[in-house]
């Protein structure tokens, strides 16, 4: 797995810990939702950062009470064809005001990087090494964006305003 943050390869400072493993002392950890909810009170006292993997089958609004004590939110793509986490990401950014790191995990492939970036993910955990190498190319393939999204690129509907329409009168 290679981690890319804001377009640059980075070391993952979070340790992924499964539900039955002990939490490593003093390390930033990324844990599953069950453990996170079960141990919510105990985790509150933990000095090191805690990140949570939020499943795509659970309404993202339920995360709201915990946002103040989470250091990283990871949203899951069990298959690249399962697009629920795009909506979760946008709601986190645009509705719930999450400004912390937001990571795409799971079956994360090159042809979806741009969609993820536009939906508010700033961290992408890439499944294939070759895809990580092509990250820059993949997210710069397009210069034209038709609709507004989380990335706040101007949508074409607005970009066009005030311009004459080339071709009109042909």
């Amino acid at each position: 797995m290679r981690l890319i943050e804001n377009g640059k390869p980075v070391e993952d400072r979070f340790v992924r810990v499964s539900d039955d493993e002990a939490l490593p002392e003093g390390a930033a950890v990324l844990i599953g939702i069950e453990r996170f909810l079960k141990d919510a009170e105990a985790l509150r006292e933990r000095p090191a950062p805690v990140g949570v993997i939020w499943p795509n089958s659970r309404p993202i609004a339920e995360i709201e009470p915990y946002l103040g004590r989470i250091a990283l939110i990871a949203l899951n793509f069990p298959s690249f064809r399962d697009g629920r986490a795009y909506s979760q990401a946008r709601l986190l950014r645009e509705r719930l005001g999450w400004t912390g790191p937001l990571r795409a995990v799971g079956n994360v492939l090159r042809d979806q990087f741009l969609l993820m970036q536009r939906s508010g993910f700033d961290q992408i955990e890439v499944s294939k090494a070759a895809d990580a190498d092509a990250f820059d190319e993949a997210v710069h393939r397009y210069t034209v964006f038709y609709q507004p999204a989380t990335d706040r690129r101007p949508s074409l509907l607005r970009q066009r305003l005030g311009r004459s329409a080339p071709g009109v009168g042909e």
Partner: protein
Amino acid sequence: MYVYDEFDRAFLAERVAEFRDQVARRLSGALSEDEFKPLRLMNGVYLQLHAYMLRVAIPYGTLSSDQLRRLAYVARTYDRGYGHFTTRQNIQFNWIKLEDLPDAMAALAEVGVHGIQTSGNCIRNVTTDQWAGATPQEFDDPRIWAEILRQYSTLHPEFTYLPRKFKIAITAAPKDRAATKVHDVGLRLHRNEAGELGFEVLVGGGLGRTPFVGKSVRAFLPARHLLSYIEAIMRVYNQYGRRDNIYKARIKILVHEIGAEAFAKAVEAEWEAIRDGALHLSDEIIADIRSRFLYPDFTPRADPPAALVAALEDPAFADWHRNSVHPHKVPGYAIVTVSLKAIGAPPGDATADQMDVVAALADDFGWREIRVGHEQNLCLPNVAQEDLPAIWRRLEAAGLATPNVNHISDIIACPGLDYCALANARAIPVAQEIAKRFKDLDRSRAIGRLHVNISGCINACGHHHVGHIGILGVEKNGQEFYQITLGGRADEHAQLGTLLGPAVSYEQVPGLIEDVVDTYMELRADPQELFIDTVARLGVEPFKERVYAAH
């Protein structure tokens, strides 16, 4: 015509480059077929029974003559010299090689044509009335709104991997020619009592193995809120639509399972949060899109002109005129339907040469504009009535003037087992045989309007549920059987057909259809009562008794 600008052209070129790279990665093995499949589908590329198929979008059914000529070029250069127009304002090329696809796409992109989002689990090509902008019936040109939706939905970051495909259709006329009630979202553009433009929003219609007529979730949505409301619908669907079973993943199942009221409530709650945000359509934005549609410089003319009156003395021309020419909003003009249902030909197919003929007619008489309707016919939306005789002669010479529009031989059919990897039974030869039985013009004219729809499998690409007579091919013990339904309709009174009785064999279908029609001719209250109205009045029982007694 909508005029693509440098942004659209840049986007299309970028899309072609991306697909070229994806094909190269597939051929090198960097992409597995499983990974490649959704990518090619979202560019309209299917793997069919015999070859790859390219489905090309004709957004809201509008083509320029240059675009149609380019489709002819692709048919000739990369395919076997013809294309198949579908029920969703697309054209399909059935014999394209994978390695030729990027070049074919690049050739199409040069004239602003593409296969983007004609397949895959995304928002598909938005369809509308093929008479848009020309019919006297409409409240506004629905293509303005279809274009706004086209732009909004193109490579949408959030809605490219939906639970399942998503189809939107718009009608702006009370007569619904876009089958809006059997789409995932149907939009009925109209004006409220204050004269304000807005949409009735229907959700959850669709055919396939679980057909539903769409349910109205909002009687009037001011037009400026179109995008935010659609986004709210899409967001609810993307999160809560089922993904555990491909057959239960369409929005119609979600709407059915939680109920239209609960669904509407969820949408309204989401909409409240975004309605005044970045998707709000200001008057300026709407005016900008509107300004990109160029309309012919109509000057009202004599209606009817003397030349037309004289030409109508010719019975063959008069037959065609009565059948294929429809009223235009400007006096002295007409809308012409070009039948792609020549008796004995595959419904909806056009040869490259025929495409060139229609493109030339659009150049010479129709302000370079052609339309494609869901009935799988073409249309010249803006022609002067005095030019109709000349248009007819050229259509006639190209085999494009069969006077059977809306007749029983104007059959909607999917490609069926002759092409499709999903089909269980043939559809095209069934259509061909039925058309031959009713090729006598006096007979078919006496029958009047009658829509026959044929699907070669339960996925219902031939919209059999909403045919006045619906024919569904199924497979039993390795043999083709056909179920017949009566009384379906796709218009503003949309409803699903009722099963007539047990399925019959391939050989029995044409005779059975003749019996159904003969029964109608006997039972109808008067020659003005259409087939669909007789079925509505009497139900299917009298038809069933008669037909199954005979077989």
